């Protein structure tokens, strides 16, 4: 097995269950035992770092480092440094993180759903071609542009998951959702429209003049 096997979903799930730090150590580029798995690992974990940061986890809790089996001293140094960082940060959802427990775990649940989802996995899977030869419209991205695009997708996908999470608790209006989640109501509205089109939510009733939305149970 290779670091390329590390599925971002499992990373988010582990943090959600109370993990304080995750260090992934792979081969140096060009020396990967599985040829290019470490490139995949780095792309996935870089993105996961951006995402956990967005939901309020200190991104230092997730680290991807490179070291060969012949570099014992370097390995010890990497592990030592990382342990120190995590010790200083303390338990997840404490002083070290922007969002505190228990709210942080709710956020991580949304993060996990985003990481399991099609959009972000597709884009990360296509990262190399996007950067090297462009998307289907022939637009070639720089690393920087690619990361910006990823950040936008993260924001949107997390909002979608948070809306779905909230609706799990019961049907709600756009305004209430916006307030509960601190997301601008026009963005909630846009997401609701998209979710409705995908058949993931539907109109439950109109209360006064306000439409109330509810979840459509999905088959797994």
């Amino acid at each position, binding site marked *: 097995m290779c670091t390329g096997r590390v599925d971002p979903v499992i990373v988010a799930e*582990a943090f959600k269950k109370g993990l304080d730090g995750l260090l992934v150590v792979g081969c140096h580029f060009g020396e990967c035992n599985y040829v290019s798995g470490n490139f*995949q690992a780095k792309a996935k974990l870089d993105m996961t770092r951006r995402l956990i940061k967005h939901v309020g986890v200190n991104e230092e809790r997730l680290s991807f480092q490179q070291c060969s089996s012949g570099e014992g001293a370097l390995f010890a140094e990497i592990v030592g440094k990382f342990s120190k960082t995590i010790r200083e940060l303390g338990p997840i959802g404490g002083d070290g993180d922007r969002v505190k427990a228990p709210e942080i775990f709710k956020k991580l649940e949304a993060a996990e759903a985003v990481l399991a989802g099609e959009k972000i996995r597709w884009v990360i899977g296509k990262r190399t071609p996007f950067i090297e030869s462009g998307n289907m419209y022939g637009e070639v991205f720089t690393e920087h542009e690619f990361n910006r695009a990823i950040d936008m997708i993260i924001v949107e996908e997390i909002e979608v998951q948070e809306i779905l999470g909230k609706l799990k608790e019961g049907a709600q209006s756009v305004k209430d959702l916006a307030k509960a989640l601190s997301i601008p109501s026009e963005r909630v509205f846009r997401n609701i429209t998209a979710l409705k089109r995908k058949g993931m939510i539907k109109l439950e009733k109109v209360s006064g003049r306000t439409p109330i939305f509810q979840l459509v149970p999905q088959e797994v």
Partner: protein
Amino acid sequence: MPDKKEDIRIGVFLCHCGSNIAGYLNMEELEEFSKKLPHVTFVQRNLYSCSEGGINEIKKGIKEQNLNRVVVASCTPRTHEPLFRSSCGEAGLNPYLFEMVNIRDQCSWVHMQEKEDGTTKAKDLIRMGVAKAALLEPQEPIMSEVQIRALVIGGGIAGMTATLAFANRGYEVVLVEKEEALGGMLNHLSKLGPTMTDASALAEEKVRAVTGHSKITVFTKAKVTLVQGFIGKYKVDIETESGNKNIDIGVIVVATGGRAFVPEGLYGYDGKRVITQLELEVLLKNGLASAIKNVVMIQCVGSRNEERPYCSRICCQTAVKNAMLIREQNPDAKVSILYRDMQMYGVENEEMFRDSKVKRVRYINYDPANPPEVEPDNVRVYHALLGRDMDLAADLVVLSTPIVAQDDANVVSQLLRVPIDENGFFMEGHVKLKPLDFATSGIFLCGSARFPANIREAVAQGLGAASRASIPLAKGSVVVEPIISVLANEDACRGCGLCVALCPYGALEIQNTEKGRKVHVIDVACKGCGVCAATCYQHALSINSFTDKQIEAQVEAFLN
């Protein structure tokens, strides 16, 4: 095969590894702890789980305790997993219902001073292993045929020896040499220590045998440009003078040797008065000028320093040999060898060393902090015993430089996907257990490609590598580990091809099936890296023995 509804009965075997583990971890505590883990029905400690006695205990446990999962907490799966797996198989348990927990290399050896913390960590590791073991599923090994033809890269003494060994067993061999002539370093040497065999004669004899053998195809001025496939089924592209060849190959031997370091800018090296041992070999071959009366050799030039910390091992032998050859050609020449430590391993070399002292070769120790200085007519060296500088007359200064890795070693490394070490030499699968194999099955190594070797070692390794590589050729087939990618949820797969593009081995392809476009795993090509499973947004692909569920169970066990 235990079916899923059957009780999971896990046996945990805790290895003491003599005192390697038991000396640093609390084994009694680990035993009591393991007994309480879910599904664990049997726990036993062994002095050495890998010994005959230990293996018999595991087999006995499977039979008498009716175990249907086995966990061994011991050393490293790198060296011992195959043994434990096959032992389970011999006792009638599917070998893939075995899980190994590393409590030595990654635990007791790291935490020798922290018994309590080390024991706690071992508990975590065992708990995780047991959690995974409960979810293991039986697997069946995959068989694949082997193309009965070997490829040897590099036609030095090691490569030629391996080539002949294959051919004399009746196997076809393709030998690829990048230079115009076969022979490697031998072509530049005069006489070979310790036997003083003529280098050209040895080279010629080998080249004649190789080129005259009906089973051997030699390409000189050629290079390997592409290697695809896996053990038994490689497709190799070779660029030759007569055009490009594409040849089916079963096994590969790397024998690309090394080159002598050129000491530019060191000790006034100029290739005329200050030369290398390699340049001296050529002078000796052609007969040394009689005007040369005073020779000073300096050892460890460009080695055992910060940039190149290793000892090249063969330079001391070479210096002693050449000192004697100089005295043979110019009997009244004075030869001094300035050394840091003399590396004269082996009975014959030690004898040659003693002999050289009788023949009045002078040895002077120098301190690297205060190295000799090469001056226009002499070499100045601080003599520690005399406690002062000494001036040694020198018409010729010979620098003993190390053998370094070939400049293109990284290219070959990438072509074959085999590792090189920090000095650029190829790295074997295991120093003691697989000294002639790479970790990747089907590829082997010998000679100075691994580390500076003398002829005797290069020949022995060439014979050894060919012998190791002949095993799959003789069997005609190989069994591939079934720890690979599988399409676990065919309905979920949309045949999008995202995974196909990311697979480093070309082991995935899209096929049209009755259910539409679906991915298909070419099992023998898959190495089980898991990139596809970590990428698939439909979560349709899984890795045998590393499923999402198994990994999640380990994470959960760790956190609880």
